Structure formats: C-alpha cells, structure tokens
C-alpha cells in the first residue's frame, strides 16, 4: 500500500475501458506559478479545470498505450483506425529494436498492421476490417498475442471491438487484447498507461493462487516445497517503464538483490509468458506512480500482491527513500540501512570533483512529473540551483516531491509539450543547463541554452550509478556550450518579439467559479 494511492480503487476490469485520469484522479495540465503556489492550488483543487489561451498539441494516449504493448515479445500490434494513427510505429521501429539488443532480448522488429479506415468505414463501421486484420495477423505471423489499439474513429462511430475480440479470442491461438486508447477521451496522455494495462490485465495476466509467505524453519532441513515458497516470498516484480534503460534496470536489480530479493524486471520487453505470470510475485515495485498505479492497484485487488508506489529512484535521497519503502515490506530495514550507507558514502566521494564544477550553476527540468522532480532534486543536491520545472501534467503522485525543491519560489509550468509557452519562460529564466524530454531539446537549443536529455535508452540515470552518470553528463555539457549559442545566433525561433514579452502565467486560463 502507499500513501500516494490512499482512497483510490481499482475495480474496473468489468468495464471495457479504463477510466480516464481526469475521472480517476485530481490532475492538472495547465498551471504556471511557484512550487508553493502549485502545492496550495492542488490542495484546494482549483488547478483541475485550468486550460490555456494559446495551446499546442500535447500528444495522444494511443502512442503511450501502444508504446507499452509493442515492446512485448512476439506480439503483433493492430492499430484500428485511419492509417495516420499507426505512423508513430515508423519512428519507433529502430528505437525498439535497439532497446531489445541493449536489454539482451531477441532483436526482433516491431510488427504492426493497421485497418486503414476510410470514409466508407466511418459510415458503415470498421469491425469487418478489424476482423480481417486480426485473422491476417494470426495467419501471417503466428504471434503469442495480438494487441488491438482502438483509435478515435472507431471510438466515435461506436465499433464494438470487444465483442469481436472476445469471439476471436476463443478461436485463435494468440491472445487477443483490446486497448481502448482513443485519443479524444483524455487530455492526459498518461491515461494511455491505464488503457494499456487495462487490456493487459484483462487478457494477458493469468490468475494465480495466493500463497503464503514463508521462512525456513529453524535448524531443520528445508524441503523443496519450502524452498520454492521461500523463493516466491522474496520474488519481486520491478516494473519498468518506456524510459528505463538496461543500465537502470541492472542497477536497481543490483540494489534489490543486495538485500536478498529475487528480482524480475517486467512488463516492458517481456515475453507474453512472463507477463501471464505477473501475479506470482510477492511485491510489485513501481519506479513511477504516474506510470503504474493502475497496474499495481489492480494486481493488489486481484491477487493480493503488495506493491510499493513511492518515489522514482533518481539521486541519493530518492533512491534511498525508494529502497527503504521496499525493505520495509520485507522487514529488511537493518539490511537496507547498511546498503544505503555504503552506497552513499562511495558515491559521495566520487561526486566531489563533479560538484566543484556544477556548484552554483542553474538548471531547469522538463518532462514527466516524477522524473523531473527527482532529477531536479539530485542536481540541487550537487549545489545547483533549480530555477524551474515543467511537468507534462501534475497530480497527487508528485505532490510530496514539491517539498524537495529548496527554493519554493522556483517556477512550475504544468504543460504537456507547449514549447511556445516554455521558450518564453526559459528566455526569462536563462538556466545554465536545461534537462529535457524528447522533443523539447531542439526548441531550447535555439534559445542558446545547452541541453541534457532527461532520459535515453543508452543512459543509466537511476540508482547510485545513475546519479554519477547524471552528474558527469552535466559537467561534460558545460565543457563546451558553443553549439547552442551558435544555433541561437543562426536559427531563430518562429515567434515574434512580442510573444517573448508575454507572461507564461497569463497564458493559463483560470478555472471559473
């Protein structure tokens, strides 16, 4: 259990689709003010209905939902919609293959097909085409699972994909999994995580009998059965996300193994068989509440498996906090304190020379809420000053993290994407380094601000080794800041001077009443 999920329920599997984040949680996607202001605003609930005067496209939950599903081994993705909805697969093909190689998985390509809905289908319905597509996927590729991502068009015209999928699921060897990730349903792309896991939980995770935790009997011989029970009682699922690198997974596994746990990293890049046995673990460990609360909440309600939803293990403080929360479940408090003390001492010593370079430098971090607050906190612990943060959205999962920012007057701009708003803010703040999400960095470079990516498939940022990597990357970036300066001098941003004079906070439309 977790304080972060207090009062939330997860009994939604009877429904075809997961509820959206706006239905399920108190979330905001439009706010610009101080850390302190956001905390108070969240408390009073007045941030919930904010919107923007000028808003840019903020992403589609279909991409996040299928971003999870297409990592599974030996699956075929069927995008049910017009062909544009499948286009994201093109950009991700090389990325996913590289990730499989990096994670020591079979270097298979992504396979996706789409139903190519046209004008006639909008009138006549697309179910026949979907049936054809699923049967084609089965015949052509013999996958272990066929994952259907439902887009806006069938969502609006009312294609009953679930009846079809239930029918075909009985007939085919592949598991057929519906994912209701229609983009128009939610302003919060993070709803896509819930949409994906809703389908996964319904169709891919097999029921398991709850088992008792076990400890070896004193002195006596341990039977094979007891040994198995013991192993199960120490088995944890370390739940990965799309941005965890192999290095992250190896480092976090190392730390958990150090206190005696048996770690299984899943569900991304896992096999269908591994996912089906997800319910067997004694504990589900999330590294990102925004990503996993729906999944772990369900596993708890269905199988009784405990979960830890706490913080994201980036930096010394948050890695320690995360480890302690896990150790508490297994009554390994003493062991974990020993581990944390040892690791922290070693890391602190290694960080000393880097701290000298980074001390006093200013930083701004943009991206997913839990990652940016923990990343900012770590850089702050190196003597850097956090000027601001830009979460895609903001909800209860990151509220406790606000307190970690020393300067409570630091700006928080809650904005999914919205580079036009962000560059105005950054032009005023002028941090020494910007740490940003994929898609944001090129905009910021054009302001002449050097950038460090917030995550990357080749980078280890989590755990103790990750902290070292974050520090040395920032230090290296400062060794040559020429590139962004030249880009700024030669590639102007496409905004008029008056736009830069405007105030990002005035772009936020306050909720009425």
């Amino acid at each position, binding site marked *: 259990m977790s304080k972060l999920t207090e009062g939330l329920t997860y009994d939604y599997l009877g429904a075809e689709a997961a509820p959206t984040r706006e239905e399920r949680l108190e979330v905001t996607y439009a706010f610009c003010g101080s850390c302190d202001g956001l905390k108070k605003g969240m408390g009073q609930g007045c941030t919930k209905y904010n919107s923007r005067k000028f808003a840019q496209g903020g992403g589609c939950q279909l991409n996040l939902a299928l971003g999870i599903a297409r990592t599974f081994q030996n699956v075929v993705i069927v995008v049910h919609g017009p062909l544009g909805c499948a286009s994201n697969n093109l950009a991700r093909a*090389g*990325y996913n*293959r*590289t990730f499989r190689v990096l994670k020591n998985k079979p270097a298979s390509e992504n396979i996706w097909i789409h139903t190519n809905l046209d004008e006639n289908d909008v009138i006549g319905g697309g179910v026949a085409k979907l049936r054809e597509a699923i049967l084609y996927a089965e015949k052509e590729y013999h996958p272990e699972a066929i994952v259907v991502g439902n887009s806006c068009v069938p969502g609006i015209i009312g294609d009953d994909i679930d009846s079809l999928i239930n029918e075909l699921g009985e007939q085919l060897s592949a598991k057929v999994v519906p994912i209701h990730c229609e983009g128009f349903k939610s302003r919060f792309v993070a709803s896509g995580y819930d949409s994906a896991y809703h389908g996964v939980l319904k169709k891919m995770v097999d029921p398991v009998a709850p088992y008792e935790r076990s400890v070896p009997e004193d002195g006596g011989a341990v039977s094979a059965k007891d040994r198995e029970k013991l192993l199960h009682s120490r088995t944890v699922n370390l739940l990965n996300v799309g941005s965890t690198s192999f290095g992250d997974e190896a480092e976090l596994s190392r730390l958990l193994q150090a206190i005696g746990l048996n770690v299984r990293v899943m569900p991304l890049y896992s096999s269908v068989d591994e996912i089906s046995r997800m319910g067997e673990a004694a504990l589900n460990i999330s590294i990102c509440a925004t990503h996993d609360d729906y999944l772990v909440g369900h596993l708890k309600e269905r199988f009784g498996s405990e979960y830890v939803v706490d913080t994201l293990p980036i930096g010394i403080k948050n890695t320690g906090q995360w480890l302690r929360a896990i150790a508490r479940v297994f009554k390994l408090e003493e062991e974990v304190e020993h581990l944390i003390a040892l690791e922290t001492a*070693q*890391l602190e*010593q*290694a960080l000393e*020379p*880097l701290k000298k370079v980074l001390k006093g430098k200013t930083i701004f971090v943009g991206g997913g809420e839990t990652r940016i607050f923990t990343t900012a906190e770590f850089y702050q612990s190196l003597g850097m000053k956090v000027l601001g943060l830009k979460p895609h959205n903001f909800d209860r999962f990151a509220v406790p993290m606000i307190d970690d920012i020393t300067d409570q007057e630091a700006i928080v701009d809650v904005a999914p994407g919205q580079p036009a708003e962000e560059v105005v803010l950054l032009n005023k703040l002028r941090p020494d380094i910007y740490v*940003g999400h*994929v*898609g*944001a*960095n*090129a905009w*910021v*470079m*054009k302001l002449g601000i050097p*950038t*460090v*990516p917030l995550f*990357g*498939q*080749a*980078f280890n940022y989590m755990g103790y*080794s990750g902290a*070292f990597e974050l520090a*040395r*990357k920032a230090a*290296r*970036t*400062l*060794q*040559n*800041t*020429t*590139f*962004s300066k*030249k*880009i700024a001098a*030669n*590639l102007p941003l496409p905004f008029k001077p008056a736009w830069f004079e405007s105030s990002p906070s005035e772009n936020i439309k306050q909720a009425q009443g």
Partner: protein
Amino acid sequence: MVTGCQVEIIGDDAVGVVKRFQDSDAVVLGANTPGFKGDGFAGYDVVLSTLAADFVAPQAVKDQRTVNILGIMPGQDVFYRGNIRGITRLLRRLGVKANTFFGDDETIEKIRQYGNAGLTLVFSEKYGIAPAQVFEEKHQIPYITLDLPIGETRTDAFLRAVGKQLHLDPQVVEDLIAEEKQYYYSYLERILEIYGDIDLQRYAIVSADLNYAFPLISFLADDLGWVPHLVVINDELDDLQRRRFEQKFFSLSSEAKPKVIFEPHAGQLLRHIRESWPQNSNEKYYNALSPAFVVGSSLEGNVAANIGASFLSVAFPVTNRAVLDRGYTGYRGGLTLAEDVFSALVSNR
C-alpha cells in the same frame, strides 16, 4: 622525371640530363625525389617547386583576382579534389579565380600560365610553402598560409582572411558568409532534435596530419559543440613553429581546450589517450573518457574500438570508405562532414 634512391646515391646527374631537353617539343621536367630525403609531403614540395621554377611562364602583369592554391596534396589528402572544389566555389563567388593544379579541369597548358596570380594561398603551415616561396621569388607572387576551411568557423576565417588580403569589399565577403550560413543552418537544423534528445555531444579525439588536425578539432568543437579532448598531430615541427601552432588551439570557442601532442610515430595514439585521462584502477565510480569519438586515419580504427569510441576516418590512409567527389571544405563541406560523423553515431540503430 623524378629520381629514386639508387641514382641519387651513385651520383647520376639525372636532373642535369633532363635540362638538355628543355628546348624539345615535349615538356620535360626533372626533380630530385629520393626516398631518403623525405616523405610524400616533401615530394609534393619538390615537384611543385620544380613546376614553379622551370615550367610556369613568367608574367609581368598579375591578376589581383586570381590566386594559386597550394598545400592540398593529392592522395595524402584523400578528399583533395572535393576539398579544392569547395574552396574554388567560394572564391568564385567572391569573384576570385583559383589556379588549383590538382582540381577539376586542370591541364598542363593552364598550369603554364599560373604566373598570372596575384596571391598564393597555402592551406598548410608546412607543406606547399616551399613552392609558394619559389612563386614569390621567381614570379613575384606573395603568399599567405591558411587553415583548411572545414566547416563554418574555419570557413568564416578563411573568407575574411582572403578578403582582407585581396582588398575585397568587406560587405561582399560578409554577404557571402551570411548567405552560405543561412544555407548551412537550414540543413544543420535537421540534426538538432536528435542531437539534443539522445545527447550527441562527444569527447573529441583527433589524430591527423598537420593540415587536418586543427581544422578537424575546430569543426568538432566550434561547429558541433563537442568537447575537444586530445589532438595528436602525426607530424614534426621545430620548437618555434610548434609553439606558434599550439596557440591556435587556444582560439577554440569551447570552455575546455584540448591537449595537443606532436607524435611522428604511428601506433602511439592509445598511449596518448591513456596518458591524457586518469586510469581506471577498478574504482566503482570511474569518470570514463566516454562517450568519445575518434577522427583519424584508418590506422586508428582499432584504437577507437579499444576505448569504446565511435570512429570516422578522414586523414590518410582511408581504407574503409569509398571516397569519390566528397569534400569537407566550406560550409557545405561542413554539412557533409556532419553527415558522416553523425551517421557513424547512429549506424547501429
């Protein structure tokens, strides 16, 4: 006619024999080029000096809008024709004609007229200077030395230097720079997103000859924003020249300046890299020289692999690439080099 070791050792006056044919219909020239007197660069100097002294016709009237180009050696610069083309193209846009010796459309007859130039541009601090001095003494053509203009920063400097030397209207030069830059950045912009999103900044290590070493590290540091870490120059200079040459590296716009080493012996790069960075004595937290990128000759490919660095061969010899009309000079050459460098980084995706 060029000589080899045997005839020079036994004392044949081969060049003297050649001189007896100077009134014949065919052009016959002779140069002393025994291997024991120097490397291929020295041979370039001797042959070009012979051309300047014995073949190029004296001309009383100089064209101040014509320049001779020296210092870019065929073969030793694998990209020589492309590089010459990039320089010629920019000069033409300034209204300056280039006599290139080895570029496109050169003929013996054209070279005979190269006493008409108003200035010699030597794209080297060492090679091509000897023939430039012959042009100066025999043909009264002054010379200046320049760095090979690879990419934006070096081409800016090249165009301004030429403009100043030829007394061109500064506005014309600046207009050309502005126009070329606009083109350059409109294409460079395409790399921005991936550069920022997956962090394509690298520690730059350059191992090259004297002509390429500085322009390459300048391109990587000034134009691509990489951290210039180490430059190993596979060449020799005397102390005074060396100190003057080293000054160039302080002009790099990066906060970090590279370590510069003159190393005439091949196979020493790995040792210099190791000496340039604290050893990994099995510490848990080791601040590695990574991610790194080596730009060198094909001989350095293994060293790059050895330290886990990415690699591109540019300096002689280049045995792992097919080079036809590729060139790295000018703003456009900078784009080409950027393509090659970044392609090396993403080729495994």
